[in-house]
């Protein structure tokens, strides 16, 4: 049966006391970039070689994002700033403007715009060429913790916030085009379930949303309807915004898969079409929250808060 099989571990000696938050595949899928305190480590999957790109951040990073051409890495730091690092030449821009830790980043597929989300409740759009701020969207009332832009359609940005709202913005104007709520009786004073992750499907028609209670929902955002729910028993309000991604098996042996990490260090894999649980990985990450899941080609990369990072390969063995 097809499943994810462990290929390799990435970090041999994670620093203790440093929270590890993000590991992402390059667009080509040959390198994993990993936030390591104020550095970015680049791990080459084939050769196993590691190189270091030092940032100028003063505090650890929450998120990183590859430019679509794989030449640059943008990093979001707790020092309120964003750095765009060129892998060969070093820092291109240091973007200053947020007034609280920066939580999430997303490039448009053309690589000309970089969007950032912050604890300061705003989303900002930056011009990558000049490093200037183009516009700010202030439409959330709690920290914005996740944003995404469809690969094939840079005209919209989705955002997820601790205020429990998922919003869709027009990239060009910054106007809010649509709001999706976790449940129909949404009211901020009644205590809401914060949103922790948003991710568009490959074709940009659907939006996968994870809330802090660990439930994943796939939205048809144009219609404003939930079309799939992935749930693990009863879960309470959690602390960490754990990772998730959509995996598209290159051999098309199954429908795309929803891969989600938990606070207990487990990874769950569902078939997105029939919602069947295909795999439950629980022997790694030693009960440390799985902060980041990244899928590319036939690989999946998981990273937990304690710095354990694994590359998994989709096999039919």
């Amino acid at each position, binding site marked *: 049966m097809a499943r994810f099989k*462990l290929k*390799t*571990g*990435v*970090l*041999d*000696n994670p620093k203790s006391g440093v929270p590890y938050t993000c590991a992402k595949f390059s667009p080509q899928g040959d390198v994993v970039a990993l936030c390591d305190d*104020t*550095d970015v480590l680049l*791990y080459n999957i084939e*050769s*196993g*070689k*590691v*190189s*270091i*790109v*030092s940032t100028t951040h*003063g505090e650890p990073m929450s998120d990183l994002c590859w430019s679509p051409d794989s030449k640059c890495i943008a990093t979001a730091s707790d020092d309120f700033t964003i750095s765009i690092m060129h892998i*060969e*030449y*070093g820092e291109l821009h240091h973007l200053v403007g947020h007034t609280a830790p920066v939580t999430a980043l997303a490039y448009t597929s053309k690589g000309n715009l970089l969007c950032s989300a912050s604890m300061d409740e705003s989303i900002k759009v930056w011009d990558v060429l000049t490093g200037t701020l183009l516009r700010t969207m202030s439409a959330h009332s709690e920290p914005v913790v996740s944003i995404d832009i469809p690969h094939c359609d840079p005209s919209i940005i989705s955002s997820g916030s601790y205020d429990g709202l998922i919003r869709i913005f027009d990239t060009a104007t910054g106007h809010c085009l649509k709001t999706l709520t976790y449940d129909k009786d949404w009211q901020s004073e009644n205590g809401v379930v914060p949103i922790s992750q948003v991710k568009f499907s490959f074709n940009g028609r659907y939006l996968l949303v994870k809330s802090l209670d660990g439930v994943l929902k796939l939205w048809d955002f144009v219609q404003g309807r939930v079309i799939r729910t992935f749930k693990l028993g009863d879960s309470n309000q959690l602390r960490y915004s754990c990772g998730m991604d959509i995996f598209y098996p290159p051999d098309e042996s199954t429908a795309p898969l929803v891969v989600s990490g938990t606070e207990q260090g487990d990874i769950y894999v569902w078939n997105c079409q029939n919602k069947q649980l295909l795999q439950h990985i629980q022997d790694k990450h030693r009960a440390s929250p799985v902060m980041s899941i990244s899928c590319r080609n036939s690989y999946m990369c998981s990273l937990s808060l304690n710095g354990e990072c*694994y590359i998994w390969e989709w096999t039919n063995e």
Partner: protein
Amino acid sequence: MNELPEWCPPYSSQKRDISTNEEVYCICKKPDGGELMVGCDGCDDWFHFSCLKISSNYKELVFSFFCPYCQAGITGPGSLSSGNLPKTIWKRKCRLHSCYKPCSENSKYCSEQHAEEYIGGVLRRVESKERNSVSLTRQMLEAGDLSKIQLLGKQGIPPATREQNSDLYDSLIGRDKKLKELREEQEIIAKKEMPRIEQEMKALKEYSEWLKAVNSRLFDSVEEAVSRKSQKKKKALKRKSICGYRSQLTIPCSVEDFSAQFQEDVEELHDICCRMRCSRHQDWAGTMQDALQFQIESFETSSQRLALLVKIREDQLNSQFHEQMQRTADLQHAPRTEERVQVAQLT
């Protein structure tokens, strides 16, 4: 008048509590309970740090304090004159993140100890172990004046040398593709492209001079001959010249031969356009000269640009070299975890 901050109640001149007759202070109009307070330099009232929403961390950083009412011009110096309203002034804080003491004179730190700690932190991120923070701080402090301190960083990142770690040097810097690519590009411009354009420029110049000679020989003589007859006619003929455009800028024959073969009504001779007022080839020499000149200028900026890129790439590799050296050193001292999957090779 400025507006009061949202959290600040309107001004009240009340000095004593109505029921207890105790002295009251601050915007909250409560008696002194031993809480941290600051005296206003404008109205001499006292204010709680907590009421003013100022962190008690800042207690040593106050230089001159003015309460919200003085800053708004309700009380204090601002209420009497229409001039500038007073503002609270803070002392500069020690550069060390966790320290809230003011800087000592001519320093960015509260004490030498914190200076060393801060520089040590910076060094840990950029430097290998050869330099230590104490000596560098000493150097900076002893340098005394700004110009010397500025010189300290001028050399940039200390260059990586092969002696420090030959394997790492070769794999990281010696065999770097980008650096090689940039240097090759520099070579092509300097050795191939530039000489080629200069050659073309020379050919154009020679041809233009030849053409000028042809034109003056052809028409100056005519003019001279004509001028004896009429001064007026000379003026009309003065600007007369052939277009002279030739697709190959080589000189076909001597000036004398060409003028000998030339006839007024022939349109082309030796592939040279001989029309008098040729709108088709108008400004051909100027256009060509501009194109070559522009080419030379772009090569000049290109070589400057490449030199700069080489420098930036070298700096980046140097810093990576030092970083990796540091990591290797750290790894050797770090305790090994039992559950090892596969050692991530540090080169």
